[in-house]
């Protein structure tokens, strides 16, 4: 540890914080100097978010001291943190969904009033930072990627001396991420300090000049990521564990999903799919930047949005366009939506009750309208056992689980039913590396047992790793599908940004 009189912007000494019996942070020493881009690495649940919440005043440490520019400080509220010059982009968005984009950003512009003038001002600022936004749209209509841009813009407008970015790139395109990195480097060159939390080691190696690695609430090491090998860093993060998904060759069988001339338009989103056929044993990847119709595609497949004619979507040879989610589940089609909390699981309900929610058509669990409670509990237990869900008890509310564990639970809940067709949106979003590998392995083994899987994801590496075929969704139009080995990352990037007309390839 450096002596007290360093020029550190922020320094934590022996910080400790626990929630009940869970120790989130223990004796954490951490510092960022001006001009530094400092990576904070660790699995989900390693204590990164807690440490950052302490620094930006959202939580108070149980023990230890914080130093801001060499002075011992107590950051008692987020307001104080902001006034001191600490800005944070949260992983879970802190946006006001009912307000417009402009109004959300207005909070970060001193003295800004609402109205048309504000929208113009915001367009100019967004342009300056290279982040595209539509000021008048209400936030609830936006995709995760679009929301992320607003969060980042909001933080940048406060010109903080210390900027904390919690997984900022998970929903950005490579181009958007590059622009963000340029902005971050510019800030660092001007003498600002940056804390960068990410699961993507490649980004960290490109961007950061130092790194602190956390595991189970304690600092297990620090390094210069530019000179340390990714393998070494990964080992520090995970301990010594295997992190490689296993791919098994698979046979394909009959047609499980067919989409023919599907055209829909709901609110501001549109969807257009000429034809798509998915065979048993096949994993089909849908790539694309957030906000290009992924939500609508998922809703159309799951039956949350019905479409006409009914035979534009065919599951297991049954036209289902006019059939709701439970009717489709009865055909052995299962669905895992993007949002864990609120869409895939009800936050305040127990894991057991959340298990029931997608099992109402399962005759083993519900017969003649009566729930077999014991079988339901067994089922929930099996899910958490099979998919290594760490949880504080099956009777506890879903919101008590960490993101990665809840994701394993909601994916596992559908996998356990051995569906004939599985549609999953962002299977590993915001999930730590090890959980992500587990989820991908489970998907691959499900396909190996003869299921058809459609994966919608913004993580290209993930899609390239598990998909057999891949197509790009751009502005609601699904391009032509090609086997994965015929794609290159460059071609995908171009198709995703609409720079290349991917309909010409057949």
């Amino acid at each position, binding site marked *: 540890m450096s002596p007290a009189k360093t020029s550190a912007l922020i320094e934590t000494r022996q910080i400790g914080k626990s929630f009940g019996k869970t120790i989130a942070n223990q004796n954490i020493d951490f510092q960022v100097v001006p001009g530094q881009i400092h990576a904070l690495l660790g699995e989900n649940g390693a204590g990164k978010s807690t440490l950052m919440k302490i620094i930006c005043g*959202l*939580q*108070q440490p149980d023990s230890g001291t914080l130093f801001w520019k060499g002075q011992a400080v107590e950051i008692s*509220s*987020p*307001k*104080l943190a*902001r006034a001191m010059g600490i800005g944070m982009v*949260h992983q879970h968005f*802190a*946006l*006001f*969904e*009912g*307000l417009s984009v402009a*109004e959300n950003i*207005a*909070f970060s512009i001193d*003295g*800004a*009033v*609402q*109205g048309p003038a504000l929208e113009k001002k915001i367009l100019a600022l967004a342009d300056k930072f290279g982040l595209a936004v539509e000021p008048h749209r*209400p936030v*609830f*209509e936006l995709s995760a990627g679009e929301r992320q841009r607003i969060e980042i813009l909001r933080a940048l407008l406060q010109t903080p001396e210390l900027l904390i970015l919690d997984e900022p790139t998970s929903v950005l395109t490579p181009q958007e991420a590059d622009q963000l990195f340029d902005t971050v480097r510019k800030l660092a060159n001007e003498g600002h300090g940056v804390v960068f939390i990410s699961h993507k080691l490649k980004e960290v190696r490109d961007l950061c000049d130092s790194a602190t690695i956390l595991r189970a609430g304690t600092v297990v090491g620090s390094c210069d990521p530019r000179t340390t090998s990714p393998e070494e860093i990964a080992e520090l993060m995970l301990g010594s564990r295997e992190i490689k998904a296993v791919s098994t060759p698979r046979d394909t069988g009959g047609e499980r999903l067919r989409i023919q001339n599907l055209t829909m338009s709901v*609110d501001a989103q549109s969807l257009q799919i000429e034809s798509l056929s998915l065979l048993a044993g096949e994993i089909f990847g849908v790539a694309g930047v957030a906000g290009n119709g992924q939500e609508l595609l998922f809703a159309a497949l799951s039956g949350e949005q019905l479409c006409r004619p009914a035979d534009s979507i065919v599951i297991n040879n049954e036209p289902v366009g006019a059939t709701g989610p439970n009717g489709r589940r009865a055909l052995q089609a299962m669905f895992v939506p993007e949002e864990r909390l609120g869409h895939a699981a009800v936050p305040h309900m127990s894991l057991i009750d959340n298990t029931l929610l997608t099992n109402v058509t399962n005759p083993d669990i519900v017969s003649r309208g009566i729930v077999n409670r014991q079988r339901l509990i067994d089922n929930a237990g099996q899910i958490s056992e099979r998919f290594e869900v760490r949880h504080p008890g099956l009777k506890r509310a879903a919101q008590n689980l960490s993101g990665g564990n809840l994701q394993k639970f909601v994916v596992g809940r559908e996998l356990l039913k051995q569906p004939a067709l599985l549609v999953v949106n962002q299977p590993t979003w915001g999930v730590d590396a090890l959980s992500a590998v587990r989820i991908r392995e489970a998907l691959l083994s499900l396909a190996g047992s003869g299921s058809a899987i459609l994966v919608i994801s913004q993580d290209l590496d993930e899609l390239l790793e598990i998909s057999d075929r891949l197509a790009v969704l751009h502005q609601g139009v699904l391009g032509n599908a090609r086997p994965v080995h015929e794609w290159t990352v460059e071609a995908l990037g171009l198709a995703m940004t609409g720079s290349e007309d991917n309909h010409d390839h057949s």
Partner: protein
Amino acid sequence: MSVDSIFLLKLLTAAILLATPLLLAALGELVVEKSGVLNLGVEGMMLIGALFGYIAAYNLQTITCLEELVPGFCQKEERVFTFADYIIALLAAATAGALLAAVFGFLTQGLRANHVAVGLGLSILGAGLSNSLGSNFFGVNYTSVQVADHPEVFGKDALVWFSLAAVPTIWYVLQRTRLGLVIRAVGENHDSAYALGYRVSRIRFYCILFGGAMAGLAGAFIVLVHVDWKEGVTVGKGWLALALILFGTWRPMRVLCGAYIFGLLWASELRLDNLFPAWQLEWKTLLTTAPYLLTIIVLVLISRNPRMIRQNAPASLGKPFNPPS
């Protein structure tokens, strides 16, 4: 003027008399709900406001002589009721309403009690308190003057103009100022607003006080301009004001339209014999339920448009806020 146009003027005047308290109370509660608080105690706050407005006016020797508001409506001559007296009585009513609201604010914001439970309690408390204090003060129940026709109210009463001016003002403050932005942010997502550094409970408390003051004014209008004080003089207008906010999807202009539609329906209901002499009793009874039916129909229609609800309804409405420890 022909007989018809006199009748029309009387009808409009009655509509204004009935709509104004609805509008005042609903506008106040609109701001409260926009900040994420559901205060079901509007009826109670209106009653308390009505009582204290009446007591203040009574002490200023005003009740029997609203000379400049209502010519010829002066039975007991005591002293001329001045405009200043009227304002003092209104201030007393607003203060009383705000004080009762402060109780609600303390329980829901300070002690984080359930909004619905406390709000219902407030309505019951307000009704009981105004009854017992009222009968202590006046001894016996007043027999109220039934919807008297006061054409001069149209264009003369300050509170009518105030309520109309409040509509664009509240719209402007909510939609075009920083204060309004903060209020809506607190009502939309209190956790995010807290993370941005706003004092959620304090902002909500001030909004609750404003709502209470507006409800107090609404009650005062009823007893100072329209009818005499009696037990339960607000006859459920506080509840109707709550429905009116849903009817208007939290938009001041629509709340204004709703208030006047309700007022007009109500006024014509009291003049059914003049309007439709041939109608049977059943039809007249049906018309009396019109405001309620209309609210239900509008609610069904707007709930078919989830986007509109999402954009206008405060998402944290009625949820107690617990700051992270």
